[in-house]
């Protein structure tokens, strides 16, 4: 295998895991953009999504399409419920209370999954399958192609939604100035719920794609995934939608190349080293704006 084809195939690997990170990072970033909350329960929504796929396909024996729809719908609903039950009552509380609550929700989801399904990991069924593609000597797995294509389509739809639709513009208005948005007649509650719904739907898609590549579901699978997506969101500039996409792909590709040069044990360490570096050198991230405290 030539060096070039090795680079290309690692790039594809990186783009594959990077697209999952990007989808999850988008949820982090959108929620932060609108209520300044680092929603640390976001990663655990992925775990719930993976279990929904497992239950519908392996336990109930339903076809993949049902599993996928159930996972995305289930994650969306879960995201909105978490927002309503855990975060809405704290809308006027200090941000630290919200952050602690988010961590609490994360533990709650992990433990409830352990209680219901058990601590051991479950083997996921094959969700998508198809022939591999060869470009020269580079072997492109079908799952990788599906993952990258589906993520790019999801991101394109999200971009149109946020830039062009009335609800998307309302989201941007609320994230910029909540009080003034209300004076326009925008319902802040509805807009925040909508943001959680979209972010969680993307997490649901991420859960399905992740399960295609790593067919194991366990109660704690969401925490490392969520943390890496969080790093991706910070690297891209938290609150920025294009930033989350760039950050996600950057982290995925970086991981792939760190593994490729034989340092796969250091993969996670490198990701968190990036977090420290970003916070030291450019805390606003790649696409981030200077944050002005509102008076």
């Amino acid at each position: 295998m030539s060096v070039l084809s090795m680079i290309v195939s690692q790039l594809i690997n990186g783009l594959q895991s990077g697209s999952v990170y990007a989808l999850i990072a988008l949820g982090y970033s959108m929620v932060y953009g609108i209520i300044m909350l680092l929603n640390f329960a976001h990663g655990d929504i992925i775990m719930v999504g993976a279990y929904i796929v497992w239950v519908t396909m392996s336990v109930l024996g339903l076809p993949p399409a049902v599993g996928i729809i159930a996972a995305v719908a289930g994650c969306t609903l879960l995201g909105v419920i978490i927002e309503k039950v855990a975060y809405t009552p704290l809308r006027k509380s200090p941000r630290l209370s919200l952050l602690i609550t988010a961590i609490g929700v994360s533990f709650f989801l992990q433990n409830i999954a352990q209680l219901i399904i058990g601590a051991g990991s479950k083997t996921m069924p094959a969700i998508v399958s198809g022939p591999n593609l060869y470009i020269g000597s580079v072997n492109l797995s079908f799952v990788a192609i599906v993952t990258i294509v589906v993520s790019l389509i999801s991101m394109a739809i999200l971009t149109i939604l946020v830039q062009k639709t009335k609800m998307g513009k309302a989201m941007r208005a609320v994230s910029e100035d909540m009080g003034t948005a209300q004076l326009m007649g925008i319902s802040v509650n509805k807009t925040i719920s909508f943001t959680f719904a979209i972010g969680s739907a993307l997490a649901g898609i991420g859960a399905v794609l992740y399960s295609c590549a790593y067919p194991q579901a366990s109660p704690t699978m969401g925490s490392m995934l969520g943390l890496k997506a969080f790093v991706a969101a910070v690297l891209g500039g938290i609150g920025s939608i294009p930033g989350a996409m760039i950050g996600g792909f950057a982290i995925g590709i970086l991981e792939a190349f760190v593994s490729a040069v034989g340092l796969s044990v250091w993969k996670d360490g490198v990701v968190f080293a990036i977090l420290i570096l970003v916070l030291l050198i450019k805390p606003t991230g790649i696409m981030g704006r200077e944050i002005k405290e509102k008076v």
Partner: protein
Amino acid sequence: MLTVKDIHVYYGPIHAIKGVSFEVNDGEIVALIGANGAGKSTILKTVSGLLHPKTGSIEFNGEDITKVEPHRIVKKGLAHVPEGRRIFLRMTVMENLEMGAFTQKSVREEDLERIFERFPRLKERRKQIAGTLSGGEQQMLAIGRALMSHPKLLMLDEPSMGLAPILVEQIFEIIKELNDSGTTILLVEQNAGMALEIADRAYVLETGNITLSGTGAELMCSEEVRKAYLGA
């Protein structure tokens, strides 16, 4: 049109508005004047629902809106141009106007035309990010944005703040025109001279209380007002 009865508003432990009552009648320009910190902006925020009074009531067109959420109040025809303009700086001029029309079913072409006719600069700059506008243009955008909701009552908080004298005159001219075309105006101003000149009636606010009221002309002649606010 608007009746505020004995409202008390608190910011945490701070008693900001201590029993204020006033009214705005159909077709009037009413001004609230007073020094910085007197509570003028707090009153507007309470009327538009961003704050709620602890006691007292607010009625708009015969309907009690004391505890109604702000986004529902806008729908009833009460628009509030907040202090410091507060336009969406990261959105385009056009998107700002679209947000103003959020309560409408769709953004109507004739509404945009009407606003662009009044503020031709906004038309030229409609694709620009609002943050790149000058102060005067931002104030015009803030007013234009509020007009998109077809308000019956337009509340303006310090529309002259930070503007060059020539622009201040222009803004007051526009307020007068809006009133002539049928919009009732509630105006909060530190620039008491300008405000009293165009106001039908005015109230003087001092540390959370209304201390004087009368027609614009009456207050303009009042010894106290002249000393305290007109620098005469």
